[in-house]
């Protein structure tokens, strides 16, 4: 009886009407590529693809079962080319479950089918001889995630430049949102207001989840009372910010704070789990959210591979300014040094950098690290050394139009393993900094560490401090644990926690700082 009931429930759930997914896919002229690398659909979802051949060669579109070696499948036809020609180059293969005709140049065909019921990555390919190596993509089948429950809002009135502490304010109006989608209702105010949304979010299992946020003006997301994403200040909605976190199975408190100064009003939030696709939590959809398709990247990736010696990549690195010096060390730990602030800017694990942005076309723009778990221990492009009477002083902030005073860059020298030692002077003292890696950063459980050695010679000014971390820290057994969505540890002798600064009194001699990701 229980089983019967379960069966009925399952049928009812899968019978829930899913909107058809409408896509268009074009072949690119003289590039042997489709313009779309990935489609995202729900299990069983009706799919309609308008396939247009914009190239001057014949192409088709053939969908296969997950794991199919599509290049080998297409190549196999060359064993009996006469037969293949009769089939118009459609392989006689049971792994093919949907396909178009072989389209002549500038022909068009509309394909309609239901997405497979089983979640997975279903490759698609052009099976015309020689095309399969580059002309391919993936139809990803994944269910959508849950949306918010019990969504409430509280509207506040005020004129702010940044998000206020809403807990100290009295709401002007409160209520529930029937469709449980985040939205800014414009019934009464168009400018100078703030909204706090609260609701519940159900994590179907313990695991990694990712949140996405963009807004005009400022906003932040808190899960179970902890801030995980912030996009504060007055700004247009711009890029989508994202952050991954680990959630236990079950219901979580979701809170989104938003404020509007003047002008445009936009709010976009979404989330995804390991097995679910990006699911919007807001009514408004960001134009950069592709709605389930991923267009071909403009350039083929050029990942810089680190093998047995350090690899250096000097370029515009996101988070390390224009004079970024990326170093990929063997062992899967990477850094970006800033030759503007003469300081370590970023530390990350896994892959080093993708050079395709800078080694194609004009090569403009800042490229972000290719790996994961990016740490920025002391904020963006700020110096480590500073003179202050008290160590809780506010450290200099990056002003892109100016140089930091008192610093002079001397370059770097390489040892036999091509590990750089960065050299600079500050207030007359000469400083050398070098890095070594322990553990394995390519595995999350690899216990990876970055050891930073700072050698100071010459005379330092009085009240000189060396900052190794900024933000909120707790101290335990001589270690300092950086709080935030990505916890990490700093170990250093003689450190003092002063306000938002983790500092060491700057002295002539050698000191070592260890940075480590929390396990």
């Amino acid at each position, binding site marked *: 009886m229980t089983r019967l009931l379960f069966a009925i429930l399952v049928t009812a759930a899968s019978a829930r009407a899913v909107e058809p997914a409408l896509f268009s896919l074009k072949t690119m002229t003289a590039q042997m590529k489709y313009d779309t690398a990935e489609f995202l659909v729900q299990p069983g979802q009706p799919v309609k693809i308008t396939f247009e051949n914009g190239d001057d060669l014949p192409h088709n579109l053939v969908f296969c079962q997950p794991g199919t070696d599509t290049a080998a499948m297409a190549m196999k036809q060359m064993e009996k080319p006469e037969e293949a020609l009769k089939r118009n180059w459609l392989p006689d293969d049971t792994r093919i479950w949907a396909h178009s005709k072989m389209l002549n140049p500038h022909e068009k065909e509309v394909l309609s089918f239901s997405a497979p019921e089983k979640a997975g990555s279903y490759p698609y390919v052009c099976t015309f001889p020689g095309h399969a190596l580059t002309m391919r993509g993936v139809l990803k089948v994944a269910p959508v995630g849950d949306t918010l429950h019990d969504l409430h809002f509280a509207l506040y009135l005020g004129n702010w430049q940044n998000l206020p502490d809403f807990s100290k304010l009295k709401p002007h109006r409160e209520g529930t949102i029937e469709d449980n989608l985040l939205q800014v209702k414009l019934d009464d105010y168009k400018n100078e207001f703030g909204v706090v949304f609260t609701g519940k979010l159900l994590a179907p299992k313990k695991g990694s989840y990712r949140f996405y946020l963009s807004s005009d003006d400022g906003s932040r997301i808190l899960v179970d009372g902890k801030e995980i994403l912030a996009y504060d200040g007055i700004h247009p909605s711009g890029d989508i910010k994202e952050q991954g976190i680990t959630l236990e199975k079950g219901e979580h408190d979701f809170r989104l704070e938003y404020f509007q100064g003047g002008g445009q009003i936009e709010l976009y939030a979404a989330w995804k789990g390991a097995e679910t696709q990006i699911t919007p939590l807001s009514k408004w959809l960001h134009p950069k959210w592709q709605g389930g398709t991923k267009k071909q990247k403009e350039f083929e990736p050029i990942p810089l591979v680190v093998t047995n010696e350090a690899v250096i990549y*000097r*370029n*515009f690195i996101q988070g390390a300014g224009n*004079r970024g010096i990326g170093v990929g060390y063997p062992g899967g730990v990477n850094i970006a040094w800033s030759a503007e602030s003469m300081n370590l800017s970023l530390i990350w694990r896994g892959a080093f950098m993708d050079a395709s942005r800078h080694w194609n076309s004009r090569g403009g723009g800042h490229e972000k690290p290719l790996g994961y778990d990016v740490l920025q221990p002391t904020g963006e492009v700020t110096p480590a050394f500073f003179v202050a009477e008290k160590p809780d002083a506010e450290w200099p902030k990056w002003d892109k139009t100016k140089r930091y005073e008192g610093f002079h860059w001397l*370059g*770097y*020298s390489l040892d036999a393993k091509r590990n750089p030692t960065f050299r600079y002077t500050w207030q007359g003292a000469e400083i050398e900094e070098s890095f070594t890696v322990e553990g394995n950063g390519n595995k999350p459980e690899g216990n990876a560490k970055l050891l930073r050695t700072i050698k100071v010679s010459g005379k330092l000014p009085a009240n000189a401090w060396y900052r190794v971390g900024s933000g909120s820290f707790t101290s335990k057994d001589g270690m300092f644990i950086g709080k935030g969505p990505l916890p990490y540890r700093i170990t250093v002798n003689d450190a003092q926690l002063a306000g938002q600064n983790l500092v060491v009194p700057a002295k002539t001699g050698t000191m070592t700082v260890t940075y480590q990701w929390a396990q």
Partner: protein
Amino acid sequence: MKRILLLSLLCSQLFAADPVEADFYKITTFATPKETAMEVGSIDLMPDGKLALGTRRGEIWIVSGAGSNDASNVSYKLFASGLHEVLGIAYNPRTRISTPPRAMRSRASKTLTTMVVPMSLKM
């Protein structure tokens, strides 16, 4: 018969075609190192007759035998890597080679001594 006629037509067209670069310069085609894209942004001829080439990928290559008529005499040696787009290059008797990296070009072009090339390879 038809085919021969077509061929002779093609030939006569070829002779009447517009002049090409090779009519004015002798062009020798060299093979470049396979491990990189030789996108050269700067060149300097050094006193010993070797060429120094700076590339967009931040490398400096020293080319021997570049003046030879025989392409097989040409050899390449990687002198430096990991620089930021070598947009200018100049031989400097003191430091051997100077180069202004992309983000510092305005400052470096005045002095040509913002020298950050690691001297790990002998020329």
